[in-house]
């Protein structure tokens, strides 16, 4: 065993030397508090989804601008929050969207109040595609007819994924019905479903009358002939009108921006009371560890401001059907706090 001990020490010292020589070669931002290797964890486990795509666009630009290494890892919400909890050095950052506080509002296990537990960073983009669809041969022409039918006592079933972005539009609709047709809102029934494919399947099986979907995933279905079992039709995009107006003119697939605008407010009217219309934009933003050096927050804000001033990132985002939406940390935090408060009201109204 003496041999091995000797070897161990020599191997150990060789390794240490190697470490020192390698680490000196690692790209570092010489002039900022953010340095070395930075990992961006996201709240989704999919590397094919919008969160990943959007995060990698931002990460690539940030890494280049700051001259550091950045890597996006799709670890999922629960793991992402936990990883962020443990690292206050600034080597771990998180990018997620409205799900981060909607999960908390809906009381989903594993979600905390992000405004208390973390530092909310800058917003970077909007995915304007949040949509609701009906079968193409549905007897409901538009959302207004659906609300009227529910108000009239008809049961309308909606496939959603519970506890977040997919449910908020449903909640708002229910809230609107309770305002316009008091007492009838329970005729709007949520059918809790998982993935987009499951929701589509529920519609094909006539198990639901309306599904939650997205412009990106469902646009082609809206162009199928009416006699196709799979054909669908948009009835509602939850985005603000001003958001869709920023989309590329050609829209998505063969559905132009003009056509998309038919499905947003004020053409579609989902009231929140007080003459206010409900809208929901799925916005992507940074989340930081609460104890992270404020200088890093500032550094990222400045870097992003520079990047957005250059204008290249906007083109890339628009190509991928994202709406560029940069707000520095302070502004973003105030804006999102207010946004959460509004949705909190809706959710508590219909409880």
């Amino acid at each position, binding site marked *: 065993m003496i041999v091995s001990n000797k070897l161990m020490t020599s191997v150990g010292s060789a390794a240490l030397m190697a470490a020192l020589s390698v680490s000196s070669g690692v790209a570092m931002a010489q002039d900022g508090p953010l340095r070395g290797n930075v*990992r961006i964890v996201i709240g989704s*486990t*999919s*590397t*094919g*989804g919008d969160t*990943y*795509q959007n995060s*990698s666009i931002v990460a690539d630009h940030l890494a280049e601008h700051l001259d550091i290494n950045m890597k996006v*890892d*799709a*670890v*999922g919400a*629960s*793991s992402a929050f*936990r*990883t962020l909890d443990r690292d206050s050095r600034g080597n771990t950052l998180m990018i997620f969207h409205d799900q981060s506080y909607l*999960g908390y509002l809906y009381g*989903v*296990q*594993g979600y905390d109040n992000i405004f208390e537990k973390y530092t909310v960073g800058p917003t970077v983009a909007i995915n304007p595609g949040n949509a609701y669809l009906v079968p193409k041969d549905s007897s409901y022409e538009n959302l207004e007819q659906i609300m009227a039918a529910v108000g009239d006592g008809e049961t309308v079933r909606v496939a959603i*994924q*519970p*506890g*977040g972005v997919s449910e908020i539009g449903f909640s708002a609709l229910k809230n609107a019905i309770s305002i316009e047709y008091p007492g009838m809102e329970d005729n709007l029934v949520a*059918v*809790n*479903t*998982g*993935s*987009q*494919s*499951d929701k*589509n*399947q*529920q519609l*094909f*099986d006539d*198990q639901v009358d309306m599904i939650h979907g997205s412009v*990106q*995933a*469902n*646009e*082609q*279905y809206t*162009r*199928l002939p009416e006699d*196709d*079992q*799979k054909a669908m039709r948009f009835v509602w995009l939850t985005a603000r009108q001003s958001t869709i107006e920023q989309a590329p003119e050609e829209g*998505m*697939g063969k559905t132009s921006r003009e056509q998309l605008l038919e499905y947003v407010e004020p053409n579609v009217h989902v009231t929140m009371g007080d003459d206010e219309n409900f809208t929901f934009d799925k916005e992507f933003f940074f989340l930081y560890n609460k104890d992270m050096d404020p200088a890093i927050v500032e550094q990222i804000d400045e870097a992003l401001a520079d990047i957005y001033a250059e204008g290249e990132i906007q083109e890339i985002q628009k*190509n*991928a059907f994202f709406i560029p939406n940069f707000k520095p940390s302070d502004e973003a935090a105030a804006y999102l706090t207010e946004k959460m408060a509004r949705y909190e009201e809706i959710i508590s109204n219909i409880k």
Partner: protein
Amino acid sequence: MEFLSLLDITFFLLAGLGALVGIIFGAIPGMTATMAVAVCLPLTYALGLNHGLALLLGLYVGGISGGMVPAVLLNIPGTPSSITTTFDGYPMAQKGEGEKALRVSVIASVVGGLISAAVLFFFAPVLADFSIKFSYVEKFLIIFLALTVIASLSSNMLVGIFSGVIGIWLSLVGVYSTSDGGNGKTRLMFDAMEPYLYEGFSLLPVLIGIFGISTILLEAEKGVKRDIAGERVKLGKGNSGFSLSIFKGRMTNLVRSSFIGTFVGMLPGVGGSAASVLAYTQEKNLSKDSSQMGKGAPQGLIASESANNALTGGALIPLLSLGIPGDSTTAVLIGAFTLQGIQVGPLFIPENVNTWYVMMTALIFANIVMFFLMFYAIKHIAKVVMVPKHLLFPIIVMMCVVGAYAINYGIMFDVWTLLIFGVLGYVIQKVGLEVAPLIIGFILGSQAEIYFVKSLESFGTFSIFFTKSPIAMVLWALIVASVVFSIVVGMKTRAKQKMELSQVAGSTQVKPGKDRDQNSR
């Protein structure tokens, strides 16, 4: 034939390179096709759509088939879908037939891959319309059918089923995820465990822990005596005992398994590993002589490998004709399309005819490259078993760690899962429970839950499982047949064993080789 102008040397080189890298990823225990595609996804930015697709499809095909290598040689499924390859491959490797086993697997793989590519090419839109006839109820029945393999796989049916149910139980630990339509609440654990177990145990760490780490523990217990893993491997004599005649009389199996693989791949939400399990079950039930299956029969390899490679074409069907990924790898492939600003959906093929042809070319070419790479590299790959165990084992542990850590993009608990299930696997085998049924229960358990509960939520009665549709009734017929078959076969083998036992009564000592054989199952 406009698309021909899109093909150039680089295109084919990338498809070939993809197949090669994919095979390497698949061959490393713990690294999967999904991971290979995911890590190379950013490269497709720079490559452009057609070249990017060539690379990714190469990786996909290579990654799925590379999984057979550790399955056969080390008894560790390189990817979840090669689980059934271990059942017959490893016993063959122990008998010194590792090279033969790999050759059989490679041929089965390429046939499966090509059949599914042909099905994809000719029938994609029709099959997509057929696949949406499968709702929660039918999907549950498919999973249930795959679960019936537990009965026929186990050496003692009662113990086997018990092990399978334990596997299902383990798969339920953690959150009933909202992304599956659940209510997002955790179960089967204490609150204190939530930070680690929120998402439950991940499949891959469980798989390589229970196969890889527990094998090492069992060896360590015996003192790691024989220093070469496959003691009787005959190598380098050009005589691997392989000839094409193995496939004689196995064509039905080959074709049937390829179609099963394609079909399961086609159903969104029914995981890829169900394909090889289902093909293996059917071969066990339908073949004339299945008594050797699980002890080193090439027919098991044929069923498993042709089915898991047929997944590739199958899983692309819903992706390209519904915009819905058929398995986890194609879910990542969607990213490649969105990165290039291409929509996938029911109109993908008519609107992107050239891309469609390009993809088919890449898929077929990748299968062929995979075949030649593997078929001629096997002799060298099989030498892995010649590495002394005291060097091989630490490297296996190391690679398992990398795979476990990387599968969910960097989660330390997945590494600890390796150890937990390594020890569990050791204990299970010691107390006489059976590993294969347990792991199949684990793989299929969570899907079974979702489809079962969602069926009942939608229809509110148990009778729906019988009356939903003609497809459901056909599936019930298959399930009943499968169960009856395994009971009959089980009774036959028991009678046979009793006869043999009475013949060799007196010499109760078990040969060490046979002993290990039992441990490994």
